[in-house]
């Protein structure tokens, strides 16, 4: 009853709008501006040096070691361009297999690994994607805002039969029934010294491992069952999950010219305060686990609050982050 009344109202509103525009709508009605096609290019750098599979990166981590890149992928969501009035305007994504729009949510996969050199592993693929394309209303755009992550309502969707780019098996994170938001992996020259701490009755045990993994993702994710034991779903049919630590990273570039610049992930900066030659517990590297000793310094670079009992939210909207920056094309 009330539903049909609502739709009646909506239809009436539509007719009203149609009538207005048909009549010219008066002299202060905004003229629908033509949309403008945009292409925002991403890249990975180490300081000012481009980074790619098969090339050595130097000065990595707090011990400034040389390393090879093994993986370099991340999801970007909530991409907006900031116009000269200071308004953040959402980029309406083109439809392709690297980017998805569902309702108000958007997500794109930036895939900078090409399965060559040290990136030649079973889970890597030759296909790459460095550009997010879409449209924005005409205007003068001077900055950019975005988040590294996957929207919560899409994060836990099915991998098997999932919608691209959320069908990527390597970015699946079955541990939290979600996605890796970022998968950046380094093989430091000389390896990583893994130490299992001494106990009251045993000495410390050490071994050498190869890869320092940085996997970002939401943690503490549990799904809901209602009182009758049925899985709780939202209106779109997605299972409702609650994550104690969303771990989505916000960043903004006050000055960004998409024609002359690209958005660079500075992996030198990302690892700069973490000793990537040591592994002292939890997953190898930092996989966002709340008690992983390699994570606090990584999350400090993300400017996301970290750990059990923390919010897992961006600190001051990521205002102090320096890992994403604008560089010349």
């Amino acid at each position, binding site marked *: 009853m009330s539903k049909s009344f609502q739709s009646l109202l909506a239809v009436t509103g539509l007719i009203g709008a149609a009538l207005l525009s048909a009549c010219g709508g008066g002299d202060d009605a905004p003229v629908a501006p033509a949309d403008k096609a945009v292409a925002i290019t991403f890249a990975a750098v180490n300081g000012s040096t481009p980074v790619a599979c098969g090339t050595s990166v130097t000065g990595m981590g707090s011990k400034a070691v040389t390393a090879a890149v093994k993986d370099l992928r991340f999801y970007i969501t909530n991409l907006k361009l900031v116009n000269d009035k200071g308004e953040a305007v959402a980029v309406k994504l083109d439809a392709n297999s690297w980017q998805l729009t569902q309702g108000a949510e958007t997500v794109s996969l930036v895939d900078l690994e090409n*399965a060559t050199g040290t990136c030649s592993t*079973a*889970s*890597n*693929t030759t296909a790459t994607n460095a550009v997010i394309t879409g449209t924005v209303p005409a205007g003068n755009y001077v900055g950019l805002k975005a988040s590294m992550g996957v929207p919560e309502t899409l994060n*836990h969707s*099915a*991998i*098997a*039969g999932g919608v691209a780019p959320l069908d*990527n*098996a*390597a970015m*699946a994170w*079955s*541990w*939290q*029934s979600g996605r890796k938001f970022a998968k950046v992996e380094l093989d430091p020259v000389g390896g990583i010294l893994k130490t*299992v701490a001494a*106990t*009251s*009755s*045993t000495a410390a*045990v050490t071994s050498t491992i190869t890869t320092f993994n940085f996997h970002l993702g939401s*943690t*503490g*994710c*549990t*799904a809901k*069952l209602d*009182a*009758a*034991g*049925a*899985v709780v779903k939202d209106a779109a*049919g997605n*299972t409702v*999950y609650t994550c*104690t*630590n969303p771990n989505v990273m916000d960043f903004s570039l006050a000055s960004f010219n998409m024609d002359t610049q690209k958005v660079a992930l500075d992996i030198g900066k990302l690892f700069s305060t973490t000793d990537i030659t040591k592994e002292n*517990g*939890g*997953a190898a590297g930092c996989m966002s*686990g*709340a*008690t992983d000793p390699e994570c606090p310094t990584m999350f400090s670079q993300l400017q996301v609050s970290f*750990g*059990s009992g923390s919010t897992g939210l961006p600190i001051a909207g990521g205002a102090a982050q320096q890992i994403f920056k604008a560089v010349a094309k």
Partner: protein
Amino acid sequence: MIRRHRGFMLKLAVAGALAGALAGVGCGGGGGVTIIETGAGAGGGTGSGGAAGAWTWSLPAGFPTPAVPADNPMSEAKVDLGRFLFFDRRLSGNGTQSCASCHQQDKAFTDGFATSRGSTGEFTHRNAQPLANVAYSPMLTWANPSLLTLEKQMEVPLFGENPVEMGINDGNKAEVLQRIATQSLYQTKFSAAFPGEASPVQWANVVKAIASFQRALISGNSKYDQFIAGKGTLTPTELRGMNLFFGEKAECFHCHGSPNFNDQFVHATTRVLETPFHNTGLYNIGGTGAFPEPNRGVFELTGLPKDMGMFRAQSLRNIAVTAPYMHDGSIATLEDVLDFYAAGGRNITSGPHAGDGRKNPLKSDLITLITLDAQEKADLVAFLKTLTDHDFLTNPKFADPFK
């Protein structure tokens, strides 16, 4: 409070069945429950026709109708397809393993190992799950409250990379699906299971079919079930063990009291669901309460200190054939498991996991020191062995179709 009450009710029911059996009354302590045998050759789960095949549950006495996801209703054709896929080694990246490699029917769909070796040689962190009556489990695996459906859970063995199990990845997933799609056997079976779909050989349908087969794995025809139904007898030692099991001395039923002998049990008309996890004092590294990584229970997912060492109580159906025991397979025999519980935890005196689990600060208050003499332990083991459903372990409907 509720749990205790439920356990008490179960005890009453068992006592009633016992009294009925002892008095020689042929009603088996019933109450209008229809028993349909699901044993070997008895045609369990049949009673339907049509291409997609509507589904009729044939359930043991006392088993409620399972809850099934609305987007994956049961059908004969799906269960049939799922059985072939479950046993098909082509479904792993390198073609060396099937689901059944680690879930073997004669072991109640476990594999006899502490942890399981994946298709590329990596080992799982935890002991392979038995699959009997998995349709009634609201949460899946040992300690993951984010995995609520078999369809979602299956992404772990199929696509997981830490560790690699079936080894399907972005580089081979199209090829693996193509291996299936090119078989005329599968073309027929996918079309039957997913009628009306133009190209039904898709990963989403692979998952749906295997989940349907798993839900059909109903086990409820053990010696114990036959006894409760008034169709068989238990020996004196088995009866003494049963009374200990359901009694306040051994208190096993608190966590193993549902029709599936666990305490997470959901069905189509569940009204109040509990999904408890328990710390049983298996570890207490350095006296800090810690369990060894990466097996710290629900803590691995949540990072919350209260979740350290919290695991799901395992179903005890077919428990005699699912050794070794516990989430990490660290206890070899049923006798040793009973010793562990009787001691109120495990005291590890040397090695990297040293610590007195009996004093784990998060240990369940149901795990306390109890005195069981040798006869009582033997009685409990004898009872636990009555939970083996030999028909289930040999039912040709659940067997490898490629043999």
